């Protein structure tokens, strides 16, 4: 079997798959940390896109702005994880609940 050489599309499709898994985790996981895991997955899939564009669409002399963007995203993801975990811990300590479905204090 002759497959086409690995190119941009491979990475993009892979990235779409990861993104959808992340999305699914965010929507269906009931544990708050599960949602956080899904978000991390989605951020990473976006990073793959950025790096793939940078790699495949740039001229031979490397133009690495995509990688710089990916760095920024990693940094922001770290912030997001820290704040998210802090919120979850706080919420848990206040209510002893980790299930986002139970956080309905503001309903109605």
């Amino acid at each position: 079997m002759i497959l086409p050489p690995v190119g941009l599309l491979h990475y993009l499709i892979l990235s779409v798959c990861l993104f959808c898994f992340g999305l699914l985790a965010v929507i269906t996981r009931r544990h708050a940390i599960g949602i956080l895991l899904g978000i991390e997955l989605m951020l990473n899939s976006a990073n793959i896109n950025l790096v793939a564009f940078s790699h495949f669409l740039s001229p031979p002399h490397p133009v690495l702005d995509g990688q710089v963007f990916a760095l920024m995203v990693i940094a922001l993801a770290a912030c997001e994880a820290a704040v998210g975990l802090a919120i979850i811990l706080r919420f848990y300590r206040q209510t002893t609940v980790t299930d986002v479905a139970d956080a309905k204090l503001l309903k109605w």
Partner: protein
Amino acid sequence: MTWADWFDQLAFFVVAGITIVAAAGVVFVPRIIHACLCLLVALIGIAGLYGLMAAHLLLAIQLLVYAGGIAVLILFAIMLLHRRSDGGILGGTRNLIIGLPATVIVWFVVAAAVIFSKWHYLPGGGTVSPQADSNVRIIGELLLSRHLLAFELVSVVMLMALVGAIIIAREDRSTDSGQQVAGQQTGESGGNAQ
């Protein structure tokens, strides 16, 4: 097809396969701690993909920050919480009924966009240039020249996140000791998300 190309292909499919499987695990594994370990594997796999795309600095950072930092942080957080399992994707009630179709729609839309778009390839794209090992220097120069503003802003955001995380997760002394004046108590808890 040369052996090198073949090996390249093999490497991609192996790494991509591991990553996809691990990502699926994040969604389907019932116990949250296992999900987190799956995420760890997926993150390492993504680092491998970076390596295949000659993004060596990102590879290192992905391993250090994500695998070494964020994933471990989440593991600790999980251990601080008592509830260990939420039954995975199947444990939910009706979320799956909406979530699965929504995700499938997204997959098809984006995948179609990816496949049918006319990508503007530049000549020589996808090859690793001889200067590949000077990535770090180029990224450093970019960070401190063209993207300096973003760089600085990110640093500010990180500082804010650091301070914010500390304040949010801090032990609420007034509720613990119970010896504080009532006015202070309300004053302090008013500042926290009640």
